[in-house]
């Protein structure tokens, strides 16, 4: 069993590691630039300036956020790209430089082209003649955002009057452009080349932090992600724990009872009813309840939307536990009814299935009947499939229901997730996803072990096949 467990756990760790790489990759590729997101102030932010001036401002912020390191331990890129390409951070600059590099294959030349362009821009900005300066600023913006060599050349061809003051610069640019147009990437350079960056990379830093329990700080409010999750988890645990607990408490006896009288009209009707209940969308019921609960003169006068703080202020300390539970009653109800309906049906069918097994028939012929038969022979076998659910229950306890938490204004994990997503707080979102992946892994292991322990017929090897 020990070797089996070790094997199982190591595959899980491997998959968690792969998940972490995927998450990191996603984090780096979502729309919305982290630097710009962090530096927006009262105005529209500093990056709506000329692209040739923006890069400088941008990289100052990028260094502050530690984005100037390579992404991963290694990179596998066309040999055209220099191993220091990651140092370019400004999104527009990356795009244009990449395009030019792919066209020409000559990195030093591309670099000197941009140096010349920036120099040109700096001279233009200092120019005293405003009409000239406006003209060239716009021209240079177009040039800086273009990677079409022919178009760039034609944009540099201007009237004599505009050309004269910057003759030297334009000549230099034209020289470089001429050289660039002669270049083309050599055949060999299309083969990928491996760059090894070592441990000083963004992913490594992030991953080491994560496994040492440091989930980083939220880009939204600068708080530790760990603190935010710690604050949100109790709410979700309460709601989901109660919901799942009540659902099981209800569905087990109910399912068994219905399985014992499968043909009665009562069972039939209840089954219909449960199906209908299962089909009712919880967000709809939640919205209805919410309005009824709070409209004066109707519904549940004990429920207030602004949460239990309302009771704290109005009800005093002694009332707290009761009002707290009352406060949770509506969200818990909305979470429970569907699950309970589903589990009842599930329990009922697995109980029925076991009842039809030959060994039960054998037990009956041996004279075992009634309570003893059901409790000792049917129930343990009918519970087996339920164990698989544990794998799902553990992460479900924590993830919560986004919809329910938003509607009832519960500051739990679901609302934390949606708020973080909307404000592009990826540190929180990915820590959340990672946490759920770990819990799912944990649930899988736990259900495996429980299955093995509870049913000697399932061998380790068999489980392994099943699980993989």
């Amino acid at each position: 069993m020990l070797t089996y467990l070790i094997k199982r756990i190591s595959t899980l760790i491997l998959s968690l590691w792969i998940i972490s790489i995927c998450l990191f990759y996603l984090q780096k590729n979502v729309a919305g630039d982290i630097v710009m997101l962090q530096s927006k102030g009262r105005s529209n932010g500093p990056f709506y300036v000329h692209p040739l001036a923006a890069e400088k401002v941008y990289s100052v912020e990028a260094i502050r956020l530690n984005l100037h390191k390579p992404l991963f331990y290694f990179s596998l890129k066309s040999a055209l790209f220099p191993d220091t390409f990651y140092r370019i951070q400004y999104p527009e600059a990356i795009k244009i430089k990449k395009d030019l590099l792919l066209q020409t294959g000559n990195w030093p030349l591309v670099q000197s082209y941009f140096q010349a362009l920036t120099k040109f821009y700096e001279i233009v900005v200092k120019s005293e003649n405003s009409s000239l300066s406006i003209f060239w600023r716009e021209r240079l913006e177009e040039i800086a955002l273009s990677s079409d060599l022919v178009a760039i050349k034609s944009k540099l061809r201007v009237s004599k009057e505009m050309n004269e003051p910057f003759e030297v610069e334009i000549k230099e640019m034209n020289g470089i452009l001429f050289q660039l147009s002669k270049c083309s990437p050599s055949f060999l350079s299309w083969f990928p080349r491996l760059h090894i960056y070592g441990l000083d990379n963004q992913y490594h830093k992030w991953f080491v932090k994560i496994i040492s329990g440091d989930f980083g700080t939220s880009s939204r409010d600068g708080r530790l992600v760990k603190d935010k999750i710690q604050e949100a988890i109790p709410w979700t645990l309460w709601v989901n724990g109660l919901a799942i607990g009540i659902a099981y408490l209800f569905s087990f006896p109910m399912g068994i009872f219905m399985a014992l009288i499968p043909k009665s009209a009562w069972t039939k009707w209840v089954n219909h009813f449960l199906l209908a209940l299962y089909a009712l969308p919880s967000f709809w019921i939640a919205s209805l309840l919410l309005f009824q609960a709070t409209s004066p003169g109707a519904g549940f006068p004990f429920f207030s939307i602004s949460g239990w703080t309302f009771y704290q202020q109005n009800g005093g300390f002694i009332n707290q536990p009761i009002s707290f539970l009352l406060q949770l009653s509506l969200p818990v109800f909305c979470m429970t009814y569907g699950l309970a309906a589903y589990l009842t049906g599930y329990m009922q069918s697995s109980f029925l299935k076991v009842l039809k097994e030959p060994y039960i028939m054998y037990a009956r012929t041996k004279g075992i009947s009634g309570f003893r038969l059901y409790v000792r022979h049917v129930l343990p076998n009918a519970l087996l499939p339920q164990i698989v659910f544990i794998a799902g229950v553990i992460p479900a306890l924590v993830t919560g229901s986004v919809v329910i938490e938003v509607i009832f204004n519960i500051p739990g994990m679901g609302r934390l997730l949606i708020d973080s997503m909307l404000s592009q707080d990826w540190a929180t979102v990915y820590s959340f996803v990672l946490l759920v992946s770990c819990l799912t892994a944990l649930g899988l292991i736990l259900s495996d072990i429980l299955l093995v322990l509870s049913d000697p017929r399932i061998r380790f090897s068999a489980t392994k096949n099943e699980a993989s």
Partner: protein
Amino acid sequence: MKFFFLAPLAIVLLFLSSCERTEDKSIHKRTTNEVAIRLEAEPDRLNPLLSTISYARQVFDPLHLYLMNYDPTTLVLVPQLLKESPKIQFINSGEFEGGTKYSFEIREEAIWDDGKPVTALDYEATLKIVFNPFLPTLGYRTFLENIQSFEIDQLNPKKFTIILNDTYFAGLESLTNVVPVLPKHVFDPQNLLDKVSLLKLIKDPSPENQLKNYPFIKDFADNYMGEYFSRIPEGVNGSGPYQLVSWQAGQEILLQKKQSWWGDKLAVENPAFQAFPDKLLFKIIPDPVTALAALKNEEIDVMQNIAPEDFINLKSDSLTKAHFTFYTPSSLSSYYISLNTRLPVLSDKKVRRAFAHAIDVDELINSVFEGFGTRCATPLHPSSAEYNASLKPIEFSIEKAKKLLSEAGWSDSDKDGILDKKLDGKKTALTVKYLANASKASSMILAELIKSNAKKAGIDIVIDGKDANTLLEKLRSRDFEMISAGRSLTPQWSPSQNWRTDSDNRSGFGDEKTDSWIDEMEREPNQSKRFVISKKLQAKIYEEQPEIMLFCPQERLVIHKRFQAVSTAVWPGFYPLAFKLVTD
């Protein structure tokens, strides 16, 4: 079991019971002098220098005082921490020639909570934080980087002078209303900032160089970014009338009036110091439906930004009417469509004007915003004195649009219903991609309405729905043809931010002439002379139509009846400090 049988019955009962309302309408549930305000999103920080979420401003503003602040009703800048409006001198000679000198004096009464006086040293240190290159305060620096000199009176630390390098008309606002004065002895107890020169920080924003000058500056920034100065009462409180009591994450933030606040004595005569409510309770309820339910249940007293159709429904609800007053102040913001004039198709101003004629703005206001909007013709608010009222909003007329387009050389040569023209020798159809915010229903409806009307004029509009961040990125990289956008307006228009050719000028408007107008206007200290130039500039923008101005929306605001309140054009439309409890 029985419970489940009762469930559908209960639901039916709930429906029925909603019809009868037996409660006495004249009795309010809430009676205390505590204003409960709904917040759409949780603030990120209660730090005026670091917060990036606009909702935070509502919460931290009552904690602080500015040197001068806008009066919420008159929108005039009035002294708050200052004794009086500063003396302004234009410098005609010497080192700072061409600049402006402002002489300030802070009120004698002004003290921090621990009794220490508010002095110029506090303000200077606050500005040093703004210019700390390791803090994300870039947005504020642009307003203050013109400072050439900051001198504190040797004898009276409440007196100080600042010199700006030019005669920028909004200089006074930048110096007095951009950042509040924060308590130096709280954020800098070791007096580290005394070693730092403010002017050095302003002149060289590079982090590496400043780290060489002041090795402690990064640690200072990291410490300042911590929770203490953003969430903990001792760290966030200022000289304002309120103090932070508690912040329950995701639930509520409670502010309480300071017991013996120094400004109370002044409040009798000076409305800038009025602070009537005992407590301000900010309830964080992101979901609009949930917030409406809380409003109906009188759990909140103030709610703004209510969806137009909900607002109308609320108005017809007798119970809500019994407890709340409805306000629709004009808000200082406007909606417009930006056209990328750099593109060949949109480079002709006749084409752009034709687009403007093809949009039925009145229908937009009525169908999407239920009539809560005022038309405008220029980028300013129509109620502003600076607004050029001689320019009339462009009327909806497909005929005029067609005429202008044919004048510009567009015709339907291939009879496919879409106009075309030879541009650079290539036949080009009048097809324009319109970027809309896919996550906002109103933005998409707006796009559909515009598309269907433009079609009649032979313009083919292709709607491209994208999320808000992608839209911003596309705007920034000028990768758009036509895009719907909104902007918030300031009481004073400073066109250099959006209309100068070297600024955040998305549409590509402007030339040498308009740039010089803008410079001239922003350096003109005389208001009436400035307005003349401003109106000229507005007329030029109107003529060029780089942006099709749609309308200025009205705020939809509800305030509990137990408070006597006045709405304001300043976001969020109300000023809770001036809420007076009505006693019968």
